[in-house]
Each structure stands twice: as C-alpha cells, then as structure tokens.
C-alpha cells in the first residue's frame, strides 16, 4: 500500500496537528459520538447484548466455511451470481469483466472501504468507465482528489468554506457555504447520475446466510439508489461480514448503528440478494456478490488475531482514540484508519509496511471500552509490536529496527551488571550537562535522542542516585531507631 515517496506516518501526523479545521472537527466528533456512546453503554443496565453478539459473531466466524457456502447457495437460488475472489486483484478483474460484458459506461458507488482496499475504482477508470461516489462525504473527497479521513465521516478535514469553493469550481454553482444549500447542489448533481448509471457498486455491511440477503445501511439513500436504479448491482463483501441467521443479524445491526452514531436505526437498511423479479419496474437485472478473502483467511488462521474479524466497522473506536483524535485518518495510509486500522492494516497489507501504526497507538484501552463487540485491540497492538520487535516468519515480519534491538541488548547488559551500570550513569551525568537549559531540564538531545526532546523536555539524571540517597537516609533512621530502642 505504501509507496516510497509518500510522507511518513510522523510527517502526516505532524501535518494533521497543524490543520486547525481537522483539529476542531475531530474534537467535536469525539465529544459528541465518542463520549455519547460511552455514556450510552454506561447507562444501559445490562450489557448482555454486547456479549451475546460477540459470542455469536465468534461462533459464526469459527464456522465461516459452512456459513459462506450457505449464503452462496441462497444467492444463487435467487438468481444472483457469486464470485469467490481469493485476492483483491481477482475481485477487481471480475468487476472489470462484468463491466465489460455489459458495456458499462457509468458506475455509481455506495461508500465501501473494501473497494478502496482492492483499488477497483482506478481499474475501472483506466478502462474508460466513469466512477461516481454517491455518499456526500465521499463525493466531496472525490471532487477534491483527496482521501477519506474517517470511516463514517469521510470529509471531516474540510470545512464548509472549502467545500463551498470546491463546489463553485467543480459544479459551477454560485459560492455558498450553507450546508443545506451545498447538500441540495450535490443532490441535484448526483440524482441524474444515479438514475442513468449502468452499474451500482456497493460494499456489504452484513450478509445473512440463512436468507441469502446482504444488507446495506445508509442515512442518505444513495445506497438504495445504487442498488435500485442501475441495470447491474455488484456488491463487494469481505468474507467475515456475515451473520448466520436473522436473529444474529438483528443484534449486529443494532450495535452497529448505536456504535457508529448513537442511532436506534439508520435511515435505510436495505436487504437485497438477487435480480428483480418479473414485473418489477426497478431493481437490477443482474446481481453479483463478490466474496473477497484478500488475506482474511490468514487472519482467521491465527488465534491471536482471529478476534479482529468480529469487527462491525462502526468506527466507534476512532471516535474515542486519543491518537486518532489528534492525527486524523490520513496518517494511517490505509482505507482503515484509527485503532481498528492500526490492527487490520498491518495484517492485510504487511506488518513492516504499516509498522508505525501499532507503535503510534497509546495502548490506553479506550478502544476496547467503547467497542460494541469488545474487541481487544490493545492486546493485538501489543502482539503486533512483539512480532515487529523479534520478527515473525508466519507473517513475514522482519525485525523492524535492528538498531533498536541492539540498543536494548546493550541496555540489558549494562543494567544487569552493577559496575557497568554505575559507570554508565556517571558518564551520562557528565554528558548531560551541556544539554541542560535554564529550567534545569534537558531541552535538546543529539542523534537518535533528538526525537525524544522535539516535543518535550526531560528531567535530568539526579546528581545523586536514589540508592545512595536511600542508604544515607536509611542509615540515619536506623541509627535513630537504635537510639530510641536502647535509650
């Protein structure tokens, strides 16, 4: 995913910290939804639902072969096509084939992270197909040639003035920064596109194996449009996004809409799973379900990480994470940002390519507390760090920073030998003198230490080590004690 020229995690994080629009939107978002969801969980007297959904989710995932097979059979029975894509590029090739066969000129899309993961938009565009994002936030991002920065609020890094200018330039409307007017402009511009498009591409929130339907959740209605008006509907689905039964589906849906935006239910929850039947004036003539593995079965096969497949993609962990809350989504360089992204991006796209992510998170545990299905992301972040520190053959993880490992080895050697240790301390005490500022703190270090002091001052080593002070004080006390006892 990451190209060499791209700015690093730290550079992008730095940029985000300087972006005032982003900072204030993130704060608002976290105050409203992060805190709101935490309060909601706290106010509910039993969190039996969360535990129950998690249990069912795990047992479905542990029988994924059976559940997926049933789903595929049911979709086919309803007249839909099912394609099993081992890799992202298999999935993309299939989409291209469907588009080509049906002479598709325009595709309208409903927001789908999986489509970004496999890069289907670019491939279609290279084939001369026009691809239009229809979710308002994604549409704005597409017009701006930008990348989304939040799972459910893709354009929180832009303010209304920026969007107003963008619309003036790209849609040719008079400048306005009024959100209702801007929305109306997009509504007008996208309506014709959605009615006339040849193909709709969507993701899939959750499929239900028992009924052979996939379900799609949206507030805007764009996904309903994309699954109703075009001749062809193609849904991309990660293999783990599935419920065995409708009862399981209900729990997942309720936790998803609560966790994502404190809603009892989103405006539209559509259940589709085949071509329209005879006599139906709308609905697609062809329905394709593309089941995408792309590294997921590998996660499934590792008990340490299997749990992450239970994720509902609600985005709640983004809304509480103190790291995401400062640096936003772009620094993660992945369609999956935030704490959930810090775990799945390395697993899907390579640990070394995304090594910074698990180190950037603070391990405060907030993501675990807020997660509707209590996914232990902090535990998995630590597991990732461990693999990066020592290397891991199964995940093709190289030791991330051999120099760091060497430094720690040296450190171990020094602290386990009292003579070395004292000597090292004495040297350090001498060496730190030139770096001490007026405040008596160390404000600047050299070499690899420089990054430690870029954003903070460090207290210097004490002139007298603790154990010596302790001994002195202790011996004085001892003496006094002796005197009292014997006096």
């Amino acid at each position, binding site marked *: 995913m990451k190209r060499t020229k791209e700015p690093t995690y730290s550079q992008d994080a730095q940029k985000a910290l300087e972006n005032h629009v982003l900072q204030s939107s993130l704060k608002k978002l976290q105050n409203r939804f992060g805190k709101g969801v935490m309060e909601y969980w706290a106010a509910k007297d039993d969190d039996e639902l969360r535990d129950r959904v998690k249990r069912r989710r795990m*047992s479905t995932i542990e029988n994924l072969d*059976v559940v997926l097979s049933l789903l595929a059979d049911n979709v086919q029975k309803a007249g839909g096509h099912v394609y099993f894509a081992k890799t992202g590029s298999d999935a993309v090739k299939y989409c291209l084939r469907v588009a080509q066969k049906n002479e598709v000129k325009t595709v309208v899309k409903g927001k789908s992270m999986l489509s970004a993961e496999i890069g289907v938009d670019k491939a279609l565009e290279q084939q001369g197909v026009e691809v239009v994002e229809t*979710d308002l936030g994604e549409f704005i991002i597409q017009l701006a040639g930008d990348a989304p920065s939040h799972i459910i609020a893709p354009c929180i890094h832009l303010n209304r003035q920026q969007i107003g200018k963008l619309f003036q330039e790209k849609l040719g409307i008079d400048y306005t920064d009024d959100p209702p007017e801007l929305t109306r402009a997009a509504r007008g511009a996208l309506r014709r596109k959605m*009615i006339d498009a040849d193909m709709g591409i969507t993701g899939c929130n959750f499929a239900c194996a*028992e009924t052979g339907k996939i379900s799609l959740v949206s507030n805007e209605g764009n996904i309903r449009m994309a699954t*109703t008006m075009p001749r062809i509907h193609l849904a991309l689905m990660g293999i783990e996004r599935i419920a065995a039964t409708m*009862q399981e589906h209900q729990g997942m849906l309720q936790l998803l809409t609560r966790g994502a935006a404190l809603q009892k239910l*989103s405006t539209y929850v559509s259940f589709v799973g085949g071509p329209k039947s005879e006599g139906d004036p709308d*609905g697609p003539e062809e329905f394709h379900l593309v089941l995408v593995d792309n590294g997921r079965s590998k996660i499934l096969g590792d008990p340490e990480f299997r749990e992450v497949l239970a994720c509902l993609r609600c985005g709640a962990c983004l809304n509480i994470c103190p790291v995401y809350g400062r640096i936003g989504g772009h620094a993660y360089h992945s369609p999956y940002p935030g704490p959930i992204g810090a775990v799945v991006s390395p697993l899907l796209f390579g640990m070394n390519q995304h090594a910074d992510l698990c180190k950037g998170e603070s391990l405060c545990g907030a993501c675990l507390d807020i997660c509707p299905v209590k996914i232990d992301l902090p535990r998995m972040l630590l597991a990732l760090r461990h693999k990066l520190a020592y290397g891991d053959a199964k995940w093709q993880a190289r030791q991330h920073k051999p120099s760091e490992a060497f430094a720690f080895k040296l450190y171990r050697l020094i602290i386990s030998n009292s003579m070395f240790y004292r000597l090292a301390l004495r040297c350090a005490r001498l060496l730190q003198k030139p770096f001490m500022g007026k405040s008596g703190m160390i404000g600047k270090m050299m070499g690899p230490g420089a990054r430690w002091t870029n954003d903070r001052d460090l207290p210097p080593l004490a002139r007298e080590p603790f154990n010596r002070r302790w001994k002195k004080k202790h011996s004085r006390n001892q003496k006094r004690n002796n005197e009292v006892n014997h006096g």
Partner: protein
Amino acid sequence: MDEKGVFLADIRTALGYTKEETRDMEQCPAVFADVDDSLILDRIQYRTHVEKQALLQILQDNGEQLRLEVHPVSSLDAAAETIVAIIKSTKPEFSTARQIIQHDHPDLIELGLWKRMAGEAVHVHTAYSNDSEVREKSVESFIGITVPRWAVAESATVVQITGPGRPRSTSLLPSVHIALIRLEHVLADLTEVYALLGDEPPKESFVFITGSSKTADIEAHMVHGAHGPRQTHLVVIDELMVQKTTPLKGSGIFASAEI
C-alpha cells in the same frame, strides 16, 4: 475442486480442519439455532386495541425528531383528506409538472386520489406491474405513496417488502414519501419485525426506512433530503379511534412545502 471449493478449503484449513473435510450445517447446529420467538409472535397477535394506540403514540413521538410525521386518522376517507392536504401544500422539486406515484394497493385505490385531485392539475399514477413506464413516472413524481408491511413504534421505522405493484423506487425517488398503514400493522420494536420476518422470510428485497433521508457530512450539520425523500409522512388508520376535531397538525405540513 472448483473455484468455490478451493476458496472454502482455504477457510477450512485456517479453521484447523483438513481441506477434504467438507462440512455443512449439521456439523454446527448451534450457529443456526434461533431463540424461540413464539412468545413474541403471540404478543403481537393478542395485542389489544388500547395497547396498539399506546404504540401509535410512541411512534408519533419518536417520529418527530426523524422527520417522520405521523397522522392518526379514523377512516380511509379521513386518510384521503390528510393526503390531499399534504399534496396541496407541497411544491415539486425536480420538475414543474405535479405528478404522483402510488403503489398498487386496494387501500390506495380506494382513496380515489385522482378524483379528489381532479381540479388541481395533479396527475396520479399507479405502479401497476404491467405498466412499462413506471420507472419514468416515478422519476417525474414529486410524491410517492406506499402501503408498508409494518411500522415500528420504538424506532419510528416503516418496513417495505418489494412485490408486484410495490416497486422500491416509490419510497425513494420522489421528494416526499407518504406511507399509509392500518393500526393493526403497527409493531412495538425491531425484535417483532425480525420475528415476523423469520417466520416468513420474504423472497424479494425489503427495506427498513427510519425517517427521512439525511446527511451530516458537511461540518456535522444535519441536513434532510440527501438523496432520498426529504419529508416522510405516515398516515395511520385506526377505525376505532374517536374522531378528533383537529385532524391535522398544520405546522408540520407547511414545513414540508419549503424545499
């Protein structure tokens, strides 16, 4: 092994089974076991009129914040009057012509809207399943009228099941969606919907609609009418209701007139 076989074999290996060990539902009955919902179905069946009216009140309250305006009426005739008032106070958004599309449902036919709107230059279409122009008519219509299967009090949701004469676009393309339902089809919560759906899973597509289309993508500012209807009305017929003297909440209806 075919493409599906290979794909599933990889998943099986990941789960610790051998590639050859194909499994089916019989090996994991617990995954497909549903909690018995006969009590829920009984509760729906034996609900009294007073209880249903209480649900209607909850539905009305919950709809308010979601731009779902609930209008309780006592007869089909009163329903027609309410709908006519909404039509009269609404301006078309995407075209100048005043066209309406309605589902092919006996209750809607009985309303006789085309007669009632005769003097108003409003054209009323019905989505007959043999009409090849329903799609175009829906695109042109500024109001869509449907009869949903159920309405849900707790979340202010209506459930539509696609079928002949009941296309999906009627509740999607027009700027205003009016749903007409009888009180006996008002349910308490989503659990009841899932229980009924599980009892008789629809073959066709279906949708839960909760309020009007909305977005908060620009600076988290809530705007109604993103891609779907910007205003939704639910007219509920309760034939045992004592006739109210003020059948309409005027303010709500006029709010829908501004685009």
